[in-house]
Every structure is written in C-alpha cells, then in structure tokens.
C-alpha cells in the first residue's frame, strides 16, 4: 500500500465519523476521488460515496493522483492520497508525511470533528 505514517485518532468509529473525515479532506481537496480499499470500487464525488458501507477508504486529491497511484508510478506526489481505516474505537489515517503541505490542517480538522459531542453522547429516543 503506501509507505506512510499511521495516525490513530480515537473516534466513535461509525460511518458518521468516516463521513466527517471525508468532508474535512474535501475542503482541502475539492477534486478528491474515492476508492473503497476493500472492493476497489471507485467514486468520483462525495455525493455518490456510500460511506455507510465502507470500512477502508482511499482518498486521492485529484484524478491525476489517482491515476498515478493506480499505475504505481514513482511520480505520485507526496501526500496526494490518504488511507482511512475505520477501527473499533478509532479512525486510522495513513499518510505520507503528516507534517507537510495541507496535511497538518486536515489532521487537525479530523481530530476536532472526531471529538464532537454528537458522535459520542447517546440520547434517549424521545429527544431525537
């Protein structure tokens, strides 16, 4: 896969958590492309992404990056792909270099959203 660094972020680890991760990434990568890492199925937009059925997700920052990674080319730019793994109580983000480019911003946003009350605090049914 990618020879990067694993960033393990404590999380509710639900589809909503993975969805929040994708939304944050897409703010920085508006032309992001997606791939179910388990099935290889690809999605070109956030709208068509069946987040609720995905446990491992690849996000490319552009169609060009996707093509480069698909072809296993050496010219795939640094930090042009993120690999998300939804665990039992965490989200793992695999990234080339967490300290360069827009990656610190992306990771900060993910950490912030993973701590949202709404992803963690259960409510009784009458309050929904």
């Amino acid at each position, binding site marked *: 896969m990618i020879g990067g660094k694993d960033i393990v972020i404590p999380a509710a680890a639900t589809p909503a958590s993975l969805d*929040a991760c994708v939304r944050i990434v897409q703010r920085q990568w508006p032309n992001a492309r997606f791939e179910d890492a388990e099935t290889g199925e690809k999605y070109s937009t956030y709208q068509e992404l*069946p987040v609720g059925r995905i446990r491992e997700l690849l996000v490319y920052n552009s169609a060009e990056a996707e093509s480069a990674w698909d072809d296993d080319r050496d010219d795939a730019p640094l930090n042009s792909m993120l690999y998300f793994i939804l665990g039992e109580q965490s989200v793992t983000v695999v990234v080339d270099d967490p300290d360069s480019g827009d990656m610190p911003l992306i990771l900060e946003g993910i950490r912030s959203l993973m701590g949202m009350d709404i992803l963690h605090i259960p*409510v009784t049914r009458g309050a929904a």
Partner: protein
Amino acid sequence: MSRSSESILESLLQSSGLAWLVDLYEPREQALPAYLDLLDRIDSEYQARFGESVSFSPQALEAAAQSNRHRTLAFLQLLRPDRTPAMLVMVWRVLQGARIREAQMEYRELNAFRLRFTLADGERTDVYESHNISDAVLLRHLGIAKVQGQPLFDGFYALRLAD
C-alpha cells in the same frame, strides 16, 4: 401519496428508532399523511430553488439509506410537520456535500426569531431563512469543530440513540 408510501415511511421511521413520531402525533391516524405532505413540500421547495426534482419520497429515502443510513437518519430525525421545508432542503444539501458559509440566528423573547444559513456548493451560493423557532432544533445536529482556532460548522449528524 399512495398507501404503500405510508407503509414504507412507517417502516423507515420504525427502523430508525422514530416510531414515536407517529405514536405521539394527534390524531395518530393523521401522522403519516402529515409527514408525507411535509416530504411533498420539501420536494416542491427543492424544485422551486434548483429547477430539478430530487425525490424525497419514502421510497427514495429508503434507497438512500441503503448507502448512507447515517445521513438519512440525520434527515429523518429533523422531520416534523411544523418545520420549514426550505430549512430541510438546506439540511439535505449539506448532507450531499454543500458547505456552510455563514449562519446567523436572532432571538428576542416572545418577540422574534430568525435563522439564516448561506450554503456554497461549487460556484453556487444559496440562502435559507426561517422565522419559525421550531427550526432552531437543527442547530443541535450541526458538525462543530475548530480549525486553526477558527470556527467551523461542517455537516449535519444524527443523534446517537441510546440502546
């Protein structure tokens, strides 16, 4: 709407932990027609704003739930017959990826209420406004974060229902 739509909606609400929406409605037998009417009004609002139809029928919501149950659940949790259709269109747009550019709320006790959202989706910007305080409840479903110390509303999320 057909009887099958009522049946599908009831099933969808039950499987989403929202059967009580029907049980507590007065009179109970009018609950599903009232919710179907709301879905029709959301559909009309969407059509009026975007010139295209996105079905909010129970069948369409059931299909959407197959891929993204958490998004559909967030939407269903916000449905009430007294909600403003435009604000539910706004929620749907955000669930589909639109960004919240601006939000404003004004409140004066027993006098006035205003909730206003500006969304951006690509180059397009849309404004949604309500003077109905019932719509204030959608604020508790907002994704809330800080990035570089700055405020961020991003997404709408379903409340987690306790077992």
